[in-house]
């Protein structure tokens, strides 16, 4: 008989105590990565620590400061949220791409981040929106920029006993919008060959005054690409500027060669998606 425990702590402090005391315990959010990995033969943990009964980890709140997202909130709660879709359409479309309706009924943005797949769909959209991760641990709480959260495939900055509690996204500046695009060989239910998210702020004269660009599935972690943002800022987001941003993204990409795509193909696609996402984000500000 396997000696596995199921724990459902009711508070962050209780969850931290459980995972700090037992390094072989695993946090369970929606289980759409974790349980699949165990069925595929990963070693079973000593305990599943289900964090979905902790109030701080569930729910979406939007106020003057921005979005406060409980780490274990199912994706479907986000995609149904009208105000979230209005303020962060690119983030909402990234969340909406995770698996099927069934998977979105379980899978969370916190789980998407903590699983640390380079192809995770929400990471780029969180990066361009300057999201921060709120982490609780035995030593108290700390906050870290989302682009610094993942360190390598399957590895995050979380240390023993640490739990991702929430994700905070500041309210976008006026005349700002975002977009996320990924390439997959079919129209649903697949892992990104490459992805790109762009956020732009465009003034009343049509000049881009701020931008963030991030690319996914083309390096060990999602990458913030400041050079691509630089190519956009100061421009009218015309074809020439978009092309320069695309080239910067392609140059920043460090993709692998695998059955999903060759290095050269991924590099090109990272640029193409950057260009297209920038055009969509611009269109969203203007309209």
């Amino acid at each position: 008989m396997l000696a596995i425990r199921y724990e459902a702590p009711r508070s962050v402090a209780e969850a931290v105590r459980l995972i700090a005391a037992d390094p072989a315990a695993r946090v369970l959010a929606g289980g759409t990565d974790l349980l699949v990995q165990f069925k595929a033969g990963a070693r079973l943990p000593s305990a599943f620590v289900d964090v979905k009964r902790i109030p701080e980890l569930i729910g979406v709140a939007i106020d003057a400061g921005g979005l406060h997202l409980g780490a274990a909130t199912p994706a479907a709660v986000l995609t149904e949220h009208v105000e979230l879709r209005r303020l962060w359409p690119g983030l909402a479309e990234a969340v909406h791409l995770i698996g099927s309706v069934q998977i979105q009924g379980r899978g969370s943005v916190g789980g998407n981040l903590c699983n640390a797949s380079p192809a995770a769909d929400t990471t780029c959209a969180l990066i361009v929106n300057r999201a921060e991760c709120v982490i609780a641990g035995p030593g108290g709480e700390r906050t870290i920029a989302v682009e610094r959260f993942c360190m390598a495939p399957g590895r995050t900055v979380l240390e023993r006993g640490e739990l991702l509690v929430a994700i905070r996204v500041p309210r976008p500046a006026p005349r700002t919008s975002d977009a996320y695009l990924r390439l997959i060989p079919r129209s649903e239910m697949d892992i990104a060959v490459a992805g790109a998210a762009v956020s732009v702020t465009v003034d009343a004269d049509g000049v881009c005054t701020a931008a963030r660009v991030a690319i996914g599935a083309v390096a060990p972690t999602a990458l913030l690409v400041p050079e691509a943002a630089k190519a956009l800022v100061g421009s009218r987001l015309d074809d020439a500027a978009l092309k320069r941003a695309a080239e910067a993204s392609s140059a920043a990409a460090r993709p692998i060669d695998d059955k999903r795509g060759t290095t050269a193909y991924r590099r090109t696609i990272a640029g193409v998606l950057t260009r297209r996402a920038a055009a969509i984000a611009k269109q969203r500000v203007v309209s």
Partner: protein
Amino acid sequence: MARLHIETTINGEPAEFLCDPHETLLSALRNGLGLTGTKEGCSTGDCGACSVIVDGRLVPACLVLAPEAQGRTITTIEGLSSGDALHPLQQKFLEHAALQCGVCTPGFIVAAAALLDAKPNPTEEETRFWLAGNLCRCTGYDKIIRAVLDTAAHIRESAV
């Protein structure tokens, strides 16, 4: 390790079962409770055969741990008909011959019921995207989509 005693609500009735801590809800339904209408296809979240509704959300029962059911409200395919009266989706699946071997059918019907709850008047495109997480190796999907859209029209007409 002791088995866990779980109390929950299934198809409107209080229910209890014993399970292992790492057992799936799919296994508890089928093996513990004898509710074999919910099917096992892939067991990895890809096929939708195990679709159930937990606290109003459509989820794959193969990726839910059985102990998570404590205090929740669960609807399975067995809960859709009322007595001998089939749910309109079940009736329309029969009329449209929207099944062959039938192993995917409970999952499709539960997923479609969740769709019609959320969107009583879905377009064909919305219906196809909503059901993208349900796989069928027999029908070619088209009859399933027709059956769901016809059910939606039927429910709307009977409501007026």
